[in-house]
């Protein structure tokens, strides 16, 4: 019997980020329009494995997802042991644009979730012309915090357990159990301090409330989709953001939470396939 092998290929690309060498892991599947996918804080590119094995997607899109440095199989840069990891708007944007440039992606589409969704807004503000279309999942220009980040990295609390347990509440109750726990496994697998370091971008460095009004969707279409059970980036956060952007589209996704692509892939594709079709139709 033939082995069942996913049509996903993983490789490493060497990038210079912040003046330092990085070996960045990425996976890809499919052919056609490049579609870069950005994982959530404290997770990695495995969140997009369902999209990469969905032929309705991969027949028309070359889906690529990379692990941010310090995440998944992208090890931190040399000397990491002497520093505290902190993602910033600048370092995040540099990683994305360097990845796209290194792979010579021709005006890719890009989809980001959570911090990736927040970064979608920054890319729309500053670099929209570089992208064919931008999709923000669980994206808003600002969100009210709901816990103290210091709990994520302490000697008396297991960082992986607390990270996974906190985000477990962001998954909709309708999520299949296997998908729920696979989503949480990525958080349970994350190194100490990485989730917290990602959220530096979210909480401290990435407040775009004063800037989203500058987004010009005629330069780059922008689609915003948020799960109804997401209380971190709540639907009203996304809808408020969309109201600031002339012509932006926002959709509230039923029976989904903060991790639509991994917590309930079947439900998510009902929302994302029409968006991808529109991007494809626009050429």
């Amino acid at each position, binding site marked *: 019997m033939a082995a069942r092998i996913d049509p996903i290929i993983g490789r490493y690309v060497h990038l210079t980020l912040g003046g330092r060498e990085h070996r960045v892991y990425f996976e890809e599947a499919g052919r056609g329009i490049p579609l870069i996918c950005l994982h959530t804080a404290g997770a990695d590119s495995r969140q997009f494995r369902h999209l990469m094995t969905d032929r309705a997607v991969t027949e028309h899109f070359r889906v690529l997802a990379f692990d941010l440095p310090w995440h998944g199989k992208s090890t931190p840069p040399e000397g990491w042991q002497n520093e505290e990891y902190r993602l910033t708007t600048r370092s995040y944007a540099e990683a994305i644009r360097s990845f796209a440039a290194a792979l010579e992606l021709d005006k890719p589409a890009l989809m980001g979730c959570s911090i990736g969704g927040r970064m979608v807004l920054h890319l729309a503000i500053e670099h929209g012309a570089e992208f064919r279309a931008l999709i923000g999942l669980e994206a808003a220009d600002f969100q009210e915090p709901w816990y103290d980040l210091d709990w994520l990295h302490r000697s008396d609390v297991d960082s992986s357990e607390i990270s*996974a347990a906190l985000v477990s509440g962001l998954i909709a109750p309708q999520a299949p159990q296997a998908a729920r726990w696979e989503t949480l496994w990525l958080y349970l697998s994350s190194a100490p301090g990485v989730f917290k370091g990602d959220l530096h971008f979210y909480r401290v460095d990435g407040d775009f409330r004063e800037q989203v009004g500058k987004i010009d969707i005629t330069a780059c279409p922008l689609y915003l989709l948020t799960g109804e059970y997401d209380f971190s980036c709540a639907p009203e956060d996304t809808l408020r953001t969309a109201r600031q952007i002339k012509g932006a589209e926002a959709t509230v996704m039923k029976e989904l939470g903060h991790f639509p692509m991994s917590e309930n892939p079947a439900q998510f594709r009902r929302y994302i396939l029409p968006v991808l079709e529109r991007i494809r139709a626009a050429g």
Partner: protein
Amino acid sequence: MSRDLTECFERLPMLVNDNQRLVHRGRLVSVDLLIGLGDIPYYVRIERGRIATLTRGPKLMGIWRFAVRGNAESWRKHWQSVPEPHFHDLFALAKRGHLVIEGDVQPLMANLFYFKDVLSAPRRLTGEH
């Protein structure tokens, strides 16, 4: 306060202690906490993941390390079989002001999977199936 809701909650020791998986998850947990159901305080002693005692208050000089207090409507919605958005998780409730978490919350945060399951255990009884 609905009698159904308090009766349901007072079965918490059975719901937790009969759940081997949950007791195993909490095997490192021994703590006193307070759970507020509307204006009724319940003092809960957990020993190695099992609920040793659940005492309906108020009582004088009750001891607790952390407290989770919510109004009856919030708990009722939290315990539905499929809770509606913003009532499905402790922190979702807290963010909206439906629930207050206070005190020395280190045991809660260090064992958050366990306590989320304990505090949602009545869902098995009150769910609108």
